[in-house]
């Protein structure tokens, strides 16, 4: 994973609450054995019309949303399944950060492991962000704050370990493997007790 320190972008807003992982990437695209290439199917059932053309009514198809790397989403974003295809699809689509007032557990954990910043802000800040699509934000990972164009800041909580991993590009599998001795000892203890 590449280190991630700062994300600067205009926001795109998808105000719907409870955007689930089936919305983000419908199940019929899960037969892939790759991590890449899912971006063209992100939000597929909202994004395209029956004839395959872009649906101009879909928020992320609007010209002002193109190229936005920060997605502001309604409450309880990413609910549903453990499919990591959801963060893979968003990243492949070009999204680097998702902001909401509530983000589903497994989605958030999957997102952070892939360098997709999933950030929970307060209800009031969330309201403000929903009401200001296209605002230019700068997200500072180390400081755990979002900087607004007027210099104002929204602080957010980021688990210290998750932050460390993002900033340093820590390989979590490598991190667990550093504890190989403890794992061996644990297994021996359990097997002896049995």
């Amino acid at each position, binding site marked *: 994973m590449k280190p991630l320190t700062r994300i600067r972008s205009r926001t795109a807003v998808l105000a719907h609450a409870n955007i689930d992982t089936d919305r983000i990437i419908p199940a019929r695209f899960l*037969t*892939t054995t790759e991590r890449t290439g899912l971006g063209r199917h992100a939000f597929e059932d909202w994004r395209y019309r029956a004839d395959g053309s872009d649906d101009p009514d879909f928020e992320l198809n609007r010209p002002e949303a193109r190229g936005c790397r920060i997605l502001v989403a309604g409450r309880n974003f990413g609910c549903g399944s453990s499919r*990591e295809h959801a963060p893979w699809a968003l990243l492949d689509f070009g999204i680097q950060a998702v902001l909401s007032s509530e983000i589903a557990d*497994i989605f958030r954990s999957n997102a952070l492991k892939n360098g997709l910043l999933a950030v929970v802000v307060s209800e009031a800040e969330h309201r403000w962000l929903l009401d200001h699509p296209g605002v230019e934000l700068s997200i500072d990972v180390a400081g755990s704050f979002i900087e607004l164009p007027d210099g104002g800041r929204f602080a957010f909580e980021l688990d210290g370990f998750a932050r460390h991993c993002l900033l340093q590009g820590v390989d*979590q599998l490598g991190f667990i493997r550093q*504890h190989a001795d403890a*794992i061996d000892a644990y297994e021996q203890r359990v097997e002896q007790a049995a």
Partner: protein
Amino acid sequence: MTTPRTLFEKVWDTHQVVAEKADAPAVLYIDLHLVHEVTSPQAFDELRRRELRVRRPDRTLATLDHSTPTLPAAADGTRPYVTPQAEAQVRTLESNCAAFGVELHGWDSDARGIVHVIGPELGATQPGMTIVCGDSHTATHGAFGALAFGIGTTEVGHVLATQCLLQRKPKTFAIHVDNALPADVSAKDLVLHVIATIGVGGGTGHVLEFRGPAIEALSMEERMTVCNMAIEAGARAGMIAPDQTTFDWLKNRPRAPQGDAWNRAVAHWQTLKSDDGARYDREVRIDAATVCPTVTYGTHPGMAAAMDAPVPAAANAQEARALEYMQVRAGKAMAGMPVDVVFVGSCTNSRLPDLRAAAEVLRGRSVAEGVRMLVVPGSESVRRAAEAEGLHEVFTAAGAEWRVPGCSMCIAMNGDLAQPGQLVVSTSNRNFEGRQGKGARTVLASPATAAASAVAGRIADPRTLMNEEQAA
């Protein structure tokens, strides 16, 4: 005196290889890792890239269920995969399991089935274990007093390579269910009622513990139905303390401990309950006696109500949109709504008692004209048991399709799906927009309600259907 602990805390504490610290999550040991074709290929690739082995193939169990066709193979052995890519995904799991020495219940196994159905059936799922799978409904195994939760593919790779996961300790949430469920009201109705009560994000960050007399009275299959849907309230996991019902169910299963080891295991399992005075981060009380046959009316499982009750008015724009998508009118009850497709299956409701409940309604009746009904057993062993009782004949005589095991219309990625606009009464666990096919409208329900709706051609209360005919 030691501090009283919850069931969850007992399991958590004994599985910490490295304790959680302020700046690092716990390294948690995983006793059982279940694997299927959809969320594993990229994880096996990662192992290959790093030249790693599977650390504990003996703690890893794989099956084919999500992308697999539910129509039988042709005479020449070819299977009707929905796409070549689906077939390639299945073949990838077959070759990964062979290469890494993982036990696979594939096409040739008489134990193949939905991952959360076969784990318990084989006795691989046991009280006090930590169990993970790249599928959020892993919560099902919590019915046995295991800490079981879904993980992403990166984590699948972590567990394959190290048998461990990095985890922050979740919070605890007790769902006390008082009294008893009325006769003919099912565990599915109960869990839909619970989710409607606490909300679709109500369990976020928590592990639910279902407890109280109504829970203790449930069979193992019913407990699995309840824990299965913990994730639909946003929870990481759902748990129920093991008891005699649990032990009786597990005894003599192929992977369960045998002989002396069994007695030792039971002695240990009996300690796996929340101590008196244990504190939960949150608690809620539910009165089981008030639960009625419940269905969903919106596009997430929290939008659920008794089928006879008027659908509540939309509280916000999203709910309004959901009602519009579902073509449901606030103020009107769901009962009576015309049905196009009925699906009985999924890891929520595809076990033998579920099929019996559906068959009981269908016996001597037929599926209404214009309605398509699919019955998909959860595993090969459920299929055999159902056929031994003649349930398949009840289904086919009524005009339903009897299929081979798999996830089928629960996730609709194998080609079993509904058409845009069709209304599906489904015993599965998710009613998200498009979950059962683009534009399909899903109404979650119990097996009895699903079967009654198939007969009536409209959403129907199984109790009314059965009583009316008795009176006639």
